[in-house]
């Protein structure tokens, strides 16, 4: 990466016009991806991302610049050009870098870079076979594999100087079923901060079968009813509901400027008593974890909601100034091309005491969402939406017919207070989250939840 002397000179150049803080982020990342369609490798791609991002603060103002070239004189020139956007006198900053003791809470046992492409292909073939042979209705199977290794150096004028390596692996199967001119798909995957050892721990055949099962099940689905009903949202990726309905509204990105419905609610009751939620970037080798965030701050476990009361936000360095609050080790970015900002890491609703079966039995007519799709939110209004991938009607306390095209909508403040039961089957899932600082791996998780009422947008009258 870069040595301390170069870093020192670049930061000094960045501070030459009155900035009060400067930061350098160096990224060297190697990506691998392979795609298999109907059992044949159709795509295999690899490449190297490399670049340097420089950020300068002056009060609430920030300047950001990046470049792919890393020669010292070039970097100094780039830093000076960025600094020219501020017009003040040079500031002196402490620049005795404190070497952090190496920190590695997310050790990788088998580095993906050391694994032959043919071994990755074999792994894909196994999942493909399981999906293809699940049913005669399976028409197409797409298996995607990716891994990357991202090395970063983050240093700033507060004396921080850290280096970190982040490994990510992901395996996804999308099965398409076709019958009588109807087509449906099922998508199941696993993402992790582990190395290739992940595949000794998970069952890729199950991923294949499960995606094929969803696709074939949904062939028999009827259109979802429309209206307001009780809904049971299952665990794992079901956590996307909290991610969208509330999580984004707790990011300083929207809180600091007052553009979140939660901005003025700290210490207030915003959810029902049984809801406790955290954002935790320290979970070992989890999809959204890291040793340090992208500002070089050690990650931590942040309590967001405790027994229904709003306890905290996710805060980055710049917004910490506006909010006059402490940073939370959850500032993230897709790459050196983005200035970092407060983002979720792994966001969880913690387990409760209800039993899944009791939840279903308590509902006369409603919806059971087994697998959710993606969603989005407008933090200013709190209005969110998310799609269901596999859902069923609940009739007289029993799970009955599969239904398709059920989109769930509502507002964050409303849904949090309508969580009636929290079960004891917590499990996590993984997604990609897109926002101002790019697309990043975000962990999700929750136990099954019963919400007393959500607007379900389908195509049939209830």
């Amino acid at each position, binding site marked *: 990466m870069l040595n301390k002397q170069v870093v020192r000179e670049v930061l000094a150049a960045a501070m030459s016009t009155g900035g009060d803080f400067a930061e350098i982020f160096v990224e060297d990342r190697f990506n691998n991806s*392979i795609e298999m*369609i*109907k059992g*044949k*490798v*159709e*795509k*295999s*791609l*690899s*490449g*190297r*991302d*490399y*670049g340097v991002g420089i950020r300068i603060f002056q009060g*609430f*103002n*920030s*300047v*950001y*610049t*990046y470049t*792919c070239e890393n020669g010292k004189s070039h970097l100094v020139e780039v830093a000076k050009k960025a600094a020219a*956007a501020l017009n003040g006198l040079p500031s002196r900053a402490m620049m005795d870098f404190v070497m952090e003791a190496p920190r590695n809470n997310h050790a990788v046992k088998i580095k993906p870079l050391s694994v032959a492409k043919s071994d990755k292909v074999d792994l894909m073939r196994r999942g493909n076979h399981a999906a293809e042979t699940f049913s005669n209705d399976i028409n*197409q199977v797409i298996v995607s594999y990716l891994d990357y290794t991202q090395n970063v150096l983050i240093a700033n004028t507060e004396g921080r100087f850290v280096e970190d390596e982040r490994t990510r692996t992901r395996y996804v199967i999308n099965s*398409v079923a*076709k019958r009588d001119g109807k*087509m*449906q798909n099922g998508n199941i995957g696993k993402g992790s901060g582990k190395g290739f050892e992940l595949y000794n721990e998970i069952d890729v055949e199950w991923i294949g079968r499960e995606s094929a099962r969803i696709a074939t099940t949904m062939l028999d689905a009827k*259109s*979802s009813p*429309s*209206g*307001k009903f009780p809904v049971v949202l299952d665990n794992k990726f079901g956590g996307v509901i909290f991610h969208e309905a509330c999580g984004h509204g707790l990011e300083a990105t*929207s809180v600091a*400027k007052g*553009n979140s*419905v939660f901005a003025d609610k700290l210490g207030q009751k915003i959810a029902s008593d049984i809801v406790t939620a955290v954002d935790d970037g320290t979970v070992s080798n989890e999809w959204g974890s890291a040793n340090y965030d992208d500002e070089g701050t050690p990650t931590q476990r942040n309590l967001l909601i405790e027994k229904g009361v709003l306890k905290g936000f996710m805060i980055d360095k710049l917004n910490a100034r506006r909010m006059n609050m402490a940073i939370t080790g959850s500032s993230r970015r897709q790459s050196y091309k983005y*200035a970092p900002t407060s983002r979720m890491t792994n966001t969880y609703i913690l387990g409760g005491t209800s039993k899944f079966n009791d939840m279903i039995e308590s509902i006369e007519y409603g919806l059971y969402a087994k697998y959710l799709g*993606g*969603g*989005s939110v*407008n933090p*200013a*209004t709190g*209005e*969110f*939406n*998310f*799609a269901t991938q596999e859902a069923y009607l609940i009739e007289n306390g029993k799970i009955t017919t599969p239904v*398709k*095209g*059920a*989109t769930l*909508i509502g*507002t964050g403040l409303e849904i949090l207070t309508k969580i009636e039961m929290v079960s004891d089957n917590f499990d996590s899932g993984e997604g990609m989250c897109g926002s101002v600082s790019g697309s990043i791996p975000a962990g999700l998780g929750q136990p099954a939840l019963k919400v007393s009422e959500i*607007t379900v*947008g*389908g*195509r049939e009258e209830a």
Partner: protein
Amino acid sequence: MQTYLIDLLFEKGAAKGFEAQEIFYMRNKNTEISVYNGEIDKYNLSEDGGLSYRGMFKGKIGYAYTEKLDESALEMLVNEAFDNAIVLELEDAVFLHDGKGDYHKIDDFNPSLAQVPMTEKIAFMLNLEADLKKIDPRVKNVSNNSYDEVESFRWIKNTKGLDVKDTTNYCLAYAMPVVEDAQDTRTGLGYDISNDFYKLSKVAIIKDATTEALTMLGAKSTKSKVCPVIIKNETFAQLFSAYVGIFSAERIQKNLSAMSGKIGEVIASPAVTLIDDPHLPYGLASSSFDAEGVATQKKAIIENGVLKTYFHNLKTAHKDGIASTGNASKGSYKGTIGIAPSNLILTPGKLSFEEMVATIDEGVYVVSLQGLHAGIDTISGDFSLQCYGFMIESGKIGRPVSQITVAGNYFEMLKDIEQFSNDFKFSILSSDYTGSSSVKIKALTISGE
């Protein structure tokens, strides 16, 4: 990008055993200015780029890319591309283009854009924010207020004689106000895009950003029903383009599209004509060559409801025994060759927007759709999307409505399009640069209370 590095790369590739080789090089200059509360909030000035390399070995094409450009990177490119080629199991014939063809001259690059002093651009954004806040007391805040300027250089060169390059640029100013009244909050978006800074209209941005947001205040849900729906021009462009992959020959050949076998058939109502126009003056996706270096061409994809062609690149066209339509795409130097439209135009109709509204007794006018990445299924065609808009009552726009979804099936909807009005507009939020007019659909399902 120095030419000697390319020569050296091709030398190394030939030594490795590649029969043909190609580079795709991109370099971007980006400027971003955000303003908040009368001060510069963010100021980003950047240059980036990368080199994509592909080589043909025994009829297979291996890819690799790098952002670090030095001699050591060349070794990595050649070795990785080789490893990626030999792992492929495709049987389809693949090609590199030889550079022959009729290249339309496009001259959209405006060299003076970057010369406009930064102080003027900053002043524009500061004034935009200030004026936006003054326009109505209910404008509480401006959550995002940014100026983006992008200059992009592209170069494709191969060992079969192709050597094409182009430079494009544009600037975009946008504002997202937050409006509030009686405990109700709404957001708006206004933007303007051009390759000439002096053509950006502050007045138009403010009008678009606030008019709709202010009239949305007080919106409430409505009863679930099936009714005629009008979708706003830019919003329909987004919905339409979210499905446009179904017309890609790649998806057809992989059995992933319901449009399979539909060439020459009626797939939409006679009101639908879709043109792919890569030569549109100042179109964001205008270019004389595609990502394989093939000359682009203007053509109808759907004509009066009849499907005329799929989008093709060299590989899919060869498989279907036709010529490429010039729609090879590459999202960036990081990707492999895919297929994408250029500027997409849904041909407008005759009636004005008001005249079209007057044809509906009871319906909903949808102005915004959310969760387009999640709430649509391109395989089955089903969609169910959170939306907001207005009630249509006795031929007039009525009260605002939110917390509802609109649901239907894309393939059925294409046939249920009664007409487009004449208020054509491109949307920068569509996944390709797509333009549409507001559209009246016979019936869709609205879910609310």
